[in-house]
């Protein structure tokens, strides 16, 4: 393996948007939009499942079906976005919790908020990554970790 490929692999591991490939972008966008749609459409059954499986079943949720839909969709979303951008850490760990804290736990609102909030978080982190030591560039994963790790510890401690 040559040096550039090792370098790009390392950056992919750290989470770096500069190496993201344009060819994967359309696929990632389509999956992101459709996935967000499917998840939000299942937000109400998810609200009930959040309370517990037994109650959700009694209230009319097809528990098995909703579960499969959500697992498959979430896997596709994670897979496509990681393939396109590298493993940018702490976004999925921190943003949904912050969304829940700020807008409450109704998934019809929480899910879109988390999706938009996550995108916003990455854009802000990437802007920082590109500007703090310009003209050189930091991997965006370093910035999200720098912000995300303390936040995550804070959220854990709150409980």
């Amino acid at each position, binding site marked *: 393996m040559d040096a550039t490929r090792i370098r790009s692999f390392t950056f992919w591991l750290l989470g770096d948007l500069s190496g993201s490939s344009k060819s994967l972008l359309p696929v990632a966008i389509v999956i992101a939009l459709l996935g967000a749609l499917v998840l939000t459409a299942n937000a*109400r059954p998810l609200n009930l499942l959040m309370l517990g499986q037994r*109650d959700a079943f009694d*209230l*009319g*949720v*097809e528990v098995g079906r909703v579960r499969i839909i959500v697992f498959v969709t979430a896997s596709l979303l994670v897979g496509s976005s990681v393939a396109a951008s590298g493993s940018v850490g702490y976004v999925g760990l921190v943003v949904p919790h912050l969304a829940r804290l700020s807008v409450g*736990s109704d998934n019809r609102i929480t899910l879109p908020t988390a999706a938009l909030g996550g995108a916003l978080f990455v854009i802000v982190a990437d802007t920082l990554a590109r500007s703090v030591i310009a003209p050189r560039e930091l991997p965006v994963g370093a910035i999200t970790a720098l912000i995300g790790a303390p936040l995550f510890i804070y959220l854990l401690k709150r409980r």
Partner: protein
Amino acid sequence: MLEAKQLIIKYDSRVAVADVSLDLRPGEITAVIGPNGAGKSTLLQALNGHVEPAAGEVLLDGRSIQKWSRRSIARRIAVVAQEAELRFPITVLEFVLGGRFAWADNGVWGWETARDLQVTNEVLQETELTDLSGRLMNELSGGERQRAVLARALATEAMFLLLDEPTANLDLSHQATLLMLVRSRCDSRHASALVVTHDINLAAQFADHVLLLDKGRVVRFGTPEEVLRPDLLEQVFDVKVLVDTHPLSGVPRVTPVHEAHRHV
């Protein structure tokens, strides 16, 4: 109509319910009593389509319950469990609105309609929870929380209420309040209720019929006077009992007689 016909339910080879037939009649409360492991809860689960029978069947409006969709069942049958499952903070209003899920139209995001809110508000009033509707479920007392669980069941507008030891964690006055709410729903809307309980005297007071189960079999089905007899209860519960008449309501009153008390 919700009825069980010669229902047999097995867990592996163990028979939990053996040949039970029962129908829930409009406006009536049926209490199911019996020792631990008699098959009371299993029977309730089967009536809700949660457990598949080995033989016999459960009929909802004349059709096997296994053939109904979950959503259609949830519009007709509501379950009140002993405890609410609560893993996330949720307000009383949100919790009770959960009962309207089965009525949501497909396609849209599933926002509650004006009718959903109207029904929910009526139910909150009925259960005297209106003032608490903005509070979080886990901030409520046990009695208030159980009232919210009942409110959610009433919000489904189901004609059949299945209650699984709904008063097990409640004090005396909350026990009576809860069952009075069930009674009034049965009286005003001709709903039917099945109450699984360990409290025989509560059953005697609120139920029109009592089903006495032992080892999955029906020992006796009938009015409280017909079922709560010392010979039947002693045979099933293996304890001496004294049955007299409640001085105020006139229903049978059951008191266990323990060896330790026989020093007179």
